[in-house]
């Protein structure tokens, strides 16, 4: 296919350049700042939750008396529910999604496939602005009477109906999620089309970097399953605003009963793929970075791509494992259990390929590589602990304990966060034309890694001992009293992880302000974005490149002395 996307003229005014920009690179940065802002908000909420779990009844330090004057700085129980609800919502939908999918999806896809922009730049711009509206709705909901949503990020009825949560907070939460769903679906349509129609000449699907594979599969899952959540929250809004009874059962519904469990079905039909929506971009990025810094071709790159595809397909038929305790028929629970276990097979392929890539590589421990190795470790732990939750017999005991919290944070918080940081350190020079500081990066990595393992491993230990995940003060119960020291340890790990982000912020600031221009290809990598200047010109490629080999051509013995990689635009060297 010949590539002919036009070279549009560069915008001149501040508004058209930074606010209403059609340029995928600018939109990527908008999403990046948006995500980092919410990462801070969600992180602060996490610290407040942890404080309550370690020092119940004690005032939150420094800002507590300002935020909760009527209790003298102590976080009240209803606010606590609000905090864990919005922590989950914000981290998943407003931090991880914008950073991994919005920022790196937008930045990497066109650059890595040799395109001048996304297929539909206007749609791309609208997608960010709609996401911004959604963020404003969510933040505004906190200031309505009775406060924000407090029914958990899953918002199960009846907790989320008018009976469980009166006030506008929950309604606005539903609205915000619906609006954000529209934004993400628009993004997904754009990503899928761009990858299919705008690959540079010569680039087959298996010549795409695995990062693009991950982002592309994520977009496909998003386009298919976000609307399902959209339908669910829409019906919930109807229940709350117009008095319908979709999710009200029994006496609350006068005749012909609605069904609260139905919402759980709808939620998890979306919710399980959502786990993969979040993790797939990180998997792709890690698969690439491991190869780039081990200076070896990605082991079994094709099978990695196919394993990711298989997981995406399987992820659509396993959602029932979130609902083993809803009196599902045993036939169904066992079916869902078996299907869930099947996912282990492609996951094992993926994981083995990562190890295969590292094996006998000449590994360079730069910051992006450290973060990627971190992902390999935490994802391994998260994946293995998932087996206990996918098995009916053990899940019945572990359901709704801190074990679940520890597990899903390992898979979709820890690994995605580390993957996102790895991506930031890796593409920062291409995005901003400045290198990030390696020393600060390494401090950031080790402190974060230490903190997060303390948090999430500690959580799994507590959960195994039977601690329920949503209690305001679990230590009033005799059987949980003795867990207070572990809980305190988890809290201090969280505080450590919070402070570990300071070097990152400092690093961003000094790197952005430094005068030293980053080289075009600081990591010696052959994918297309490294063939052009840092940062790239307005329409990316002066001439659309022709792709002649794969993205991981490292260590070819036929390469000339002193060179261990080749660009995707070069003919594969032969003896």
């Amino acid at each position, binding site marked *: *296919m010949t590539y002919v996307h036009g070279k549009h003229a560069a915008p001149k005014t501040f508004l058209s350049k930074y606010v209403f920009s059609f340029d995928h690179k600018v939109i990527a940065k908008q999403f990046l700042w948006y995500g980092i802002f919410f990462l801070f908000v969600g992180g602060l909420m996490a610290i407040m939750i942890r404080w309550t779990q370690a020092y119940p009844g004690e005032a939150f330090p420094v800002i507590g008396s300002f935020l909760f004057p009527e209790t003298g700085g102590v976080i009240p129980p209803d606010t606590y529910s609000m905090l864990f609800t919005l922590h989950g919502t914000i981290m998943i939908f407003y931090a991880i999604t914008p950073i991994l999918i919005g920022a790196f999806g937008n930045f990497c896809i066109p650059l890595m496939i040799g395109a001048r922009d996304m297929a539909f730049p206007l749609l791309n711009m609208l997608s960010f602005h709609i996401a911004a509206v959604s963020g404003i709705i969510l933040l505004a909901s906190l200031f309505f009477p009775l406060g924000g949503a407090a029914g958990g990020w899953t918002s199960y009825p009846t907790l989320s109906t008018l009976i469980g949560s009166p006030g506008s907070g929950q309604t606005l939460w539903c609205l915000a999620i619906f609006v954000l769903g529209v934004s993400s679906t628009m993004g997904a*349509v754009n990503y899928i089309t761009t990858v299919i129609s705008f690959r540079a000449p010569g680039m087959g699907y298996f010549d795409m970097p695995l990062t693009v594979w991950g982002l592309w599969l994520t977009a496909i899952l998003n386009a*298919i399953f976000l*609307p399902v959540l959209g339908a669910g929250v829409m019906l919930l809004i109807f229940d709350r605003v*117009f008095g*319908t009874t*979709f999710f009200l059962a029994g006496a609350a519904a*006068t005749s012909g*009963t*609605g069904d609260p469990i139905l919402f759980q079905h709808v939620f998890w039909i979306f919710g399980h793929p959502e786990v993969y929506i979040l993790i797939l971009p990180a998997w792709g990025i890690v698969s690439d970075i491991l190869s780039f810094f081990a200076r070896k071709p990605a082991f079994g790159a094709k099978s990695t791509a196919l394993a990711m595809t298989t997981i995406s397909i399987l992820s659509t038929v396993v959602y029932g494992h979130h609902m083993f305790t809803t009196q599902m028929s045993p036939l169904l629970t066992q079916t869902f259990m078996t299907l869930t276990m099947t996912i282990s097979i492609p996951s094992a392929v993926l994981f083995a390929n990562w190890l295969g890539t590292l094996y006998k590589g000449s590994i360079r421990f730069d910051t992006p590589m450290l973060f990627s190795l971190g992902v390999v470790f935490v994802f391994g732990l998260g994946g293995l602990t998932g087996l206990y939750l996918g098995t009916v017999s053990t899940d019945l005991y572990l359901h709704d304990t801190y074990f679940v919290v520890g597990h899903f944070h390992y898979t979709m918080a820890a690994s995605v966060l580390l993957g996102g940081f790895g991506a930031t350190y890796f593409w920062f020079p291409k995005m901003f034309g400045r290198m990030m500081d390696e020393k600060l990066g390494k401090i950031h990595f080790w402190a974060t890694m230490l903190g997060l393992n303390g948090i999430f491993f500690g959580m799994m230990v507590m959960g195994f001992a039977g601690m329920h995940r949503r209690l305001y003060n679990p230590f009033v119960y005799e059987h949980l009293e003795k867990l207070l020291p572990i809980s305190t340890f988890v809290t201090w790990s969280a505080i450590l992880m919070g402070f570990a982000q300071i070097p990152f912020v400092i690093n961003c600031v000094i790197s952005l302000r430094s005068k030293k221009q980053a080289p075009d290809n600081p990591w010696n990598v052959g994918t297309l974005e490294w063939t052009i200047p840092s940062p790239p010109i307005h329409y990316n490629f002066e001439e659309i490149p022709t792709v002649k080999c794969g993205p991981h051509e490292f260590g070819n013995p036929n390469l000339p002395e002193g060179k261990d990689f080749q660009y995707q635009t070069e003919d594969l060297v032969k003896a």
Partner: protein
Amino acid sequence: MMTKTAENIQQKEASQLGFYIALVSWGMLFAALFLSYALYRFQNTQWPPMGFEKVSLLWPCLSTGLIALSSFTIHKYQVAFHSIDRKNAKVFLGSTLFLGFAFLVTQKLLWLSLENSGLVTSSGIFASILHGFTWIHAGHVVLGLAGLIYLLTTLKSDHLGHVRFENRVENIIKFWHFLGIIWGLMFVVLFLI
């Protein structure tokens, strides 16, 4: 008419593909509704639930007729757009708009007749489904009508058949047909069976 460049052709392919993906997304929204409907039907042994009768088919039938006819007229408009037949384009786009608005009117009359027969929104799951699902569909029809109103700009002297409008015309028409199909399904599922 401008000659088509390779860029136009590529953008057209992308536009078609992108819109089909968008329709899959929209389809999933409605699929989730139909799935919920199926579960409600299985859970309630008696349907309509005790104390309710089947809904009169008058307004739903009329809605179906109108939206089916509008699919035909919008198709005629599409033909006229491509063959730069200004007179027919005007007639058929106009009648599609009229039929679209008439569809909304019959929907409003349906909701009123439901309320008159005691099926207010809060009177249980049967009424919830009848109201809620048709609201969501009608909301999309409003969106579709906005698209049709935008298409009025193609009636200007040299806009018919122009490449600049081609993709938008195709996509809005696809969306309109899609809404017709969804209504057809709702008609069968909610009112007939």
